[in-house]
């Protein structure tokens, strides 16, 4: 294919990426660097980094995103591993993907029903004479529901990564005397890391800016950068401060991507 044709094929996507990715980012950057009378200023960033509230929100976002990612990984890795050993893997995969076809808002409302004081969860607890316990609008319910929603996005890349490992390599590790744990630590985990990495990126980064779940399930008790952005754009109408938080978030996301994607340099040995 000639170079001209290649460019021709790229035009639709280039237009897309310019209109809907690059321009919006530039716009956000513009807003973050100006005040409401459209004068250039660094005041927004100054406020962000000097006002403890924003830094606390940032830490909060990180902490919750970390918790969600960590719990999701804890549930998903063993699930993905055993999935590769199952019969009828296609059916199991379908069952895992199926919930992602349901609208997020719908799922959130379903959980409100399940977790509320008169919901299924409390009805079940009452069978043992417990409760009603306040489950909804707690950190627990927020992380629980977020994890539930993210699990398929963690299982799939890990499943694919483990599936690609030649099973004979696992046997080779055992043949060389490695226990099950050592085989996991030195062979299975490093070889499936690419899947774990995509899973972390697919979950941690969006989790930094969750806002719908924080409202509906977290009951506004959980304040993250996502909720703050929503607040500034829709409630207080201070687009400049909202954009500033957005820029900080983008920088954080890039940092996370670089961090998870970086390869450890191997030490050379002298024999």
């Amino acid at each position, binding site marked *: 294919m000639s170079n001209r044709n290649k460019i021709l094929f790229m035009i639709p996507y280039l237009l897309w990426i310019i209109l809907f990715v690059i321009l919006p980012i530039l716009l956000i950057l513009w807003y973050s660097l100006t005040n409401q009378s459209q004068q250039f200023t660094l005041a927004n960033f100054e406020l962000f980094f000097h006002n403890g509230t924003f830094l606390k929100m940032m830490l909060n976002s990180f902490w919750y995103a970390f918790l969600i990612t960590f719990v999701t990984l804890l549930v998903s890795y063993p699930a993905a591993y055993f999935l590769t050993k199952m019969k009828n893997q296609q059916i199991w995969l379908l069952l895992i993907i199926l919930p992602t076809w349901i609208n997020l808002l719908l799922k959130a409302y379903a959980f409100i029903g399940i977790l509320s004081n008169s919901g299924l969860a409390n009805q079940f607890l009452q069978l043992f004479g417990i409760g009603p316990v306040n489950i909804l609008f707690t950190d627990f319910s927020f992380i629980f529901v977020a994890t539930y929603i993210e699990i398929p996005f963690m299982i799939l890349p890990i499943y694919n990564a483990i599936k690609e490992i030649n099973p*004979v390599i696992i*046997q080779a590790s055992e043949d*060389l005397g*490695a226990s099950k744990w050592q085989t996991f630590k*030195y062979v299975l985990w490093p070889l499936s890391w690419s899947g774990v990495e995509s899973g972390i990126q697919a979950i941690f980064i969006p989790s930094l800016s969750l806002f719908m779940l924080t409202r509906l399930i977290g009951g506004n008790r959980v304040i993250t950068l996502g909720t703050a952005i929503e607040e500034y754009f829709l409630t207080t109408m201070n687009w400049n401060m909202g954009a500033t938080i957005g820029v900080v978030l983008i920088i954080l996301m890039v940092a996370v991507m670089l961090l998870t994607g970086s390869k450890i340099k191997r030490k050379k040995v002298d024999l």
Partner: protein
Amino acid sequence: MGVNNMKIIELKHVKKVYDDGFVALNDINLEIESGKFYSLLGPSGSGKSTILRIIAGFSRPTEGEVYFDGKDITDLDPAKRQINTVFQNYALFPHLNVFENVAFGLKIKKMPLNEIKPLVKEALHTVRLDGYANREISELSGGQQQRVAIARAIVNKPKVLLLDESLSALDKRLRKEMQFELRAIQEKLGITFIFVTHDQEEALSMSDEIFVLNDGKIEQNGTPVDIYDEPINNFVARFIGDSNILPGRMIKDFEVEFANKRFQCADAGMKPNERVEIVIRPEDLDITEPEKGKLVVIAKTQLFLGDHFEIKALDSDENEWLIHSTNGCELNEPIGLFFDPEDIHVMRKHESQEDFDARLESYEGERDE
């Protein structure tokens, strides 16, 4: 290297039946002595790799026991066996470099790095990969990956090294080279090698002893020369080398009839007039003038194969004869075939290895008297 005749591995009545009912191994009994080079030779599906997997511990026999150094290891984990494997497609760790691959087994044993280094260096030297320690696996050729796989296994100083079709992924020239090298490595280390292959040439050239397998059973075991010269049955004769196999009749000891003629032979111990099969190797047939030959045949095709001609000829009964000869001949003309009594090998039908060995012993002793 002192050859001691210590039994290191023994399989007793080992049977392996898979979930779908396929009988992979049927009552395998074999003994492996330490310090020797063994080959398990057979077509695919004959059970040779299953035996290897059972010795390595990746597969449990359905029935029977496996002994190592006199101890029952039938249910022992592969990690706890003093046996290492060189896998078919090497199964090197792709995320580790050469040094880390070779050091893997030692690192697992928590050996300190300063003790690991000289051992890895020695192992890499043995497989002639000095200076490759810091290479990535993906930078290596197939032959070099093969060597890393061998180094990774021998660095642990196993008592037995298992090699699963280890040369089959290499091209022909490299394979020949590695055959010599494997044999040299085995002799240098003095440990037992068990080599699985479907390539009879490979087995013949490297082994002290060969087990020929078919349909989950050991058809014959012995030295390469024994197996080539005295195949026990039709399968072994066909599988090892080229052969002319004809139906015949044992007239009496040392006299056999085939192709409607009687010949002196070197076999005995059968019933008079017993139906047998005779084997003559194509390279044992010499072409002479028709009147000097023991048999007269007509050459039909002739291929020049570089170091010899491969001639296919028919006798008056339409039996096909395969002849390997350094000289060519005229096609569609009668030629004489000459062979010595020792070149005729007589096989009984359905003879077990014990009976076969006993019979050979009985008349070979008789002839010596």
